[in-house]
């Protein structure tokens, strides 16, 4: 057994980064999937996740290159390292998929999400919600005497935190776009 050693770095060029497959801790990964914008491509990606039992925490999609008909799907998913590797490989073999980027491992990246919050109330609660909105740099995009709609862009965590604070102050409805993400730097 000991005679059989594989040179270090051999699988460098393979499709895999071989991390400990037995580590059973769940990780959260943000994947950017660049696809041909053909009919049904979103259904295909979602079907892959549901059919193989993978998680989708958030998913956003839009055409990013109108002339090339290329769309970018940003999926936030959770799973053990080996499941994440499978997800990437499964996405990668779909015919309309050009590239799968794992922004979580490919260096630093920025993640943003946009959310709208409807908060209704009066008196102190109303003043407090406006004060917190300022701290969080949320904008008021609609207002009545008894309600506000706040708009906020930020990381999912920041949006979660703001929502928690708004709940006791009269949060009645909330809409989120899901995560959009890009790697930092030149490319």
């Amino acid at each position, binding site marked *: 057994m000991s005679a059989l050693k594989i040179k270090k770095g051999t699988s460098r060029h393979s499709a895999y980064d071989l991390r400990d497959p037995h580590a059973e801790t769940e990780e959260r990964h943000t994947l950017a999937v660049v696809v041909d914008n053909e009919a049904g491509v979103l259904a295909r990606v979602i079907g892959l996740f549901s059919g193989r039992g993978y998680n989708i925490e958030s998913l956003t999609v839009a055409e990013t290159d109108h002339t090339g008909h290329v769309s970018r799907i940003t999926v936030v998913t959770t799973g053990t390292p080996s499941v994440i590797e499978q997800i990437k490989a499964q996405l990668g*073999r779909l015919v309309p998929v050009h590239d799968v980027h794992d922004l979580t491992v490919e260096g630093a990246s920025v993640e943003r999400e946009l959310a709208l919050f409807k908060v209704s109330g009066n008196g102190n609660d109303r003043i407090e919600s406006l004060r917190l909105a300022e701290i969080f740099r949320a904008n008021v995009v609609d207002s009545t005497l008894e309600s506000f709609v706040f708009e906020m862009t930020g990381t999912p965590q920041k949006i979660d935190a703001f929502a928690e604070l708004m709940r006791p102050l009269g949060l009645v409805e909330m809409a989120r776009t899901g995560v959009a993400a890009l790697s930092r730097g030149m490319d």
Partner: protein
Amino acid sequence: MTRQMTGAKMVVQALKDQGVDTVFGYPGGAVLPIYDEIFLQNDIRHYLVRHEQGAVHAAEGYARSTGKPGVVLVTSGPGATNAVTGLTDALMDSIPIVVLTGQVPTFLIGTDGFQEADTVGITRPCTKHNWLVKDPEDLSGRIHQAFHVATNGRPGPVLVDIPKDVQFATGTYTPPEKARTLHYQPKTKGDPEAIEALVELIEQAERPIFYTGGGVINSGPEASETLREFVDTSGFPITSTLMGLGAYPANGKNWLGMLGMHGLYEANLAMHGCDLMINVGARFDDRITGRVQDFSPKSQKVHIDIDPSSINKVIHVDLPIVGDVGSVLADALILWKSRGSKTRADSIQKWWYQIKEWKKVDCLAFTQSKKTIKPQHALTRLEALTKDHPKRYICTEVGQHQMWAAQFLGFNEPNRWMTSGGLGTMGYGFPASIGVQVAHPDALVINVAGEASWLMNMQEMGTAVQFRLPVKQFILNNERLGMVRQWQELLHGERYSHSWSEALPDFVKLAEAFGAKGIMISDPADLDDAIMEMLEYDGPVIFDCLVEKHENCFPMIPSGEAHNKMLLGEGAPTQDVIGTSGAVLV
């Protein structure tokens, strides 16, 4: 050289330009314009099946036995839904086929139109890719792309859904070389560093084994040639999955036989005890690995596969090589030879002593009977009487007979063995045999069947007779859903819940009713003569071979167990051998 023509004509033109001369199909309202075009030409021969599932399996048999993609044409709605089982089967077994379906006209889509079904929606998870074509300008290009996708990378089924108004409309025909190339261009060449690492492992290994699979067959006959040279010059033992039989010849000196749940004792123990496992185009299916935690615990594992998602899916490997089997093996062989074709010959000789000890167990032994035909005996005689036929092709249905066929028939060439492995589709074998016979008119095509499976697509007798396809239906009739019955014996306290084949037809009369020949046999003494009668008859035959009813298929690794926990033949304990955690893996 652009040409204007109707969508229906484009379909036929595109098929011709793709080199297609054979189509399996069944007409209906939504494909009538295409059928009209088929009527008006002679280059493409259309085979009318009796059920769309049959068309797809026939195309699979055609594809697997020729290496060329199989083509299917069916109508919308029920035509398309009937094709779903075949599509799933082809997806699981990586068989290249192109299925064209008719669809209601574009302006009726979404209105629950007559015979409307969301075909691309229904077939999305059971095709490698599919498209609905709404614009006649896109039609021919899509068909060319369908062939590209079906046959490149890991092969699989591709479906093109064509609304009826698109078939009538006029558009520009795009020839194959002008079709837009897809981004989909899988890599076939293996990473040189990884190949070098493989060669180093080969040079150092003391207890190596080649574990080969369907990928070698998919890669083409040259891959089998290279594999044979590699195996023979290295002297390494080789085993194969059900799907890879024939890549290395069964009469080759290094052949250990099939591995897996019903594989040979020596093959499974060699997999368990090896120090180097070279997986060549196989996918660590659960019929192979058994208990994953105990799978070949002491080996370094190399995996050559064209599909990155096959790697590390089930078993973590030490050295992944993404690429085409033929290309990777050729590169590795050249490098290994250029470094002097070294192996640890002494250690490997010891390894062979060990393997020969395992072989002595004679795991396929069965008790003969003078009164009833043992299914294993029937296959032994079939093998003896047909193995020298230069063009013998074997198909199977699914069940015990399938496993016995894999154990008792020898395959010395690739593409001679057609079986439903991944999906395990009862009803696959008969239509597949039709597809094989269509592709090889002068070959001997035998479908080894169980009576229950065979009944699932028996309507294809009409096809066989109409097109004078002399397929031999070799039915091992145990009047049981034998494989299910075996599991009930082992797992469910011999409570044989609904595993009987009741009210079976008289197969001889059935054959005659279709205008074919029927032979019924139950006495072992008459077996050879009956087989000869089947072989000599120039036309389709139903061979109803009444066999032992409660024979079990051994060896067997109880599900959820490790390779070294095999159950051997007669006299092996059969009660309470499978734990409940294994029971779910059935």
